[in-house]
């Protein structure tokens, strides 16, 4: 049973879909029932962050070892991470449209996330600009390591410093203060774990496809 974590991922996501829609949530003004979006919005960012972290770790390992496998893991983690970032932005826009009245308000957190995505897209562009495999892997790894701290500044430090509408930044309180009887945590944490595992699974599949195509061509 080495595939247990894939089954766990599917089960956790199914559980979060059902419990997220049926479970009890605190009744708050303005957000009302959209507070349930939390279960589908926040796990995307957890999954994205995990994947970017894996990517930077494997970039560092590549620079030390020179094994192309490490570089393949790094680039596929970024590929899947960008998908999760897009999903996070999409669910965020849906939520923002309801609570803030505008899908794309001029907000530090929203803009920071978008710019961080641009940076990772630039990483992919850089890789495409280089032909030779080892050179591409090395220079890509260098840019990836360079980009990671900037991503943290953009998404987690700057919004805390400036005014932001987003909960948890700009002096706003996070969701934890409203969740008095911990009923939301019972859904949020399993959902996060489920989506993180799903991200790892996607990365694994993409990595294997890349390895296979390397062997074929």
């Amino acid at each position, binding site marked *: 049973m080495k595939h247990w974590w894939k089954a766990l991922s599917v089960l956790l996501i199914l559980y979060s879909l059902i419990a997220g829609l049926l479970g009890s949530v605190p009744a708050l003004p303005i957000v009302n029932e959209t507070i349930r979006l939390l279960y589908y919005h926040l796990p995307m960012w957890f999954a994205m962050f995990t994947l970017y972290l894996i990517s930077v770790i494997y970039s560092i390992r590549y620079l030390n070892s020179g094994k192309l496998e490490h570089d393949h893991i790094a680039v596929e983690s970024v590929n899947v991470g960008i998908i999760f970032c897009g999903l996070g932005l999409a669910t965020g826009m849906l939520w923002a449209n309801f609570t803030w009245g505008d899908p794309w308000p001029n907000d530090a957190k929203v803009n920071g996330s978008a710019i961080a995505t641009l940076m990772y897209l630039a990483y992919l562009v850089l890789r495409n600009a280089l032909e030779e495999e080892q*050179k591409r892997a090395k220079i890509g790894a260098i840019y990836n390591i360079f980009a990671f*701290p900037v991503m943290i500044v953009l998404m987690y430090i700057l919004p805390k410093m400036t005014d932001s509408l987003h909960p948890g930044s700009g002096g706003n309180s996070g969701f934890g203060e409203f969740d008095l009887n911990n009923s939301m945590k019972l859904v949020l944490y399993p959902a996060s774990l489920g989506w993180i595992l799903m991200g790892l699974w996607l990365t694994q599949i993409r990595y294997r496809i890349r390895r296979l195509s390397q062997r074929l061509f």
Partner: protein
Amino acid sequence: MSTWQQVKHLLLKDMILEWRSKYAINGILLYVVSTIFVCYQAFQSIDPTTWNVLFWIILLFASINAISKSFVQEGAARQLYYYSMVSAKAVILSKILYNSLLMILLTALALVVYTVIFGNPLVDFPLYIVAVFLGSISFASVFTMVSGISVKAGHNMTLMSVLSFPIVIPLLIILIELSNNAINGLPRADSYPEILVLVAINIIAVAVSLLLFPYLWRE
């Protein structure tokens, strides 16, 4: 030779080369001054917020232009020569220092021309000088590494912009905030967090460059 001596020699070499040809510096100064004139023709008069943002955007493009040239003159043969003589850390450190000096000169001149042409809405001039000073060093420390990367990808100017803009945006946001404080004349203590973050970003950028450049160079 110790690393510091190597840095000193490389820095002196860069300065002497530049002084002899004056190609990069004259070109870039002319670029800044003509951009300011074009903006003046287009805007005529502007409010303080736009004044500030426009200045930083002009500086951003000028610095990308200036710093993307920093590895161009080092051909493959000369790279090999350096490789046998000095450590990689000395090379990147000397380039960052040289670019910082270049940027400080450039921004100082740009600020003088800009205030003469567009007028001077600044309340707290010393604080604005601090912001401009920190900004030029930050641009230099971030762009030097990125120009090293883009040179390896064949001097691609588009790639240089694509790679460096997202990285420099957080810097730019903090710099514009800090210089807005100077324009509005807020108490100095309100600006300390921004200055602290700028210094921290600089330290991180230089440290990461020092760690990564040896790998980039060995290729």
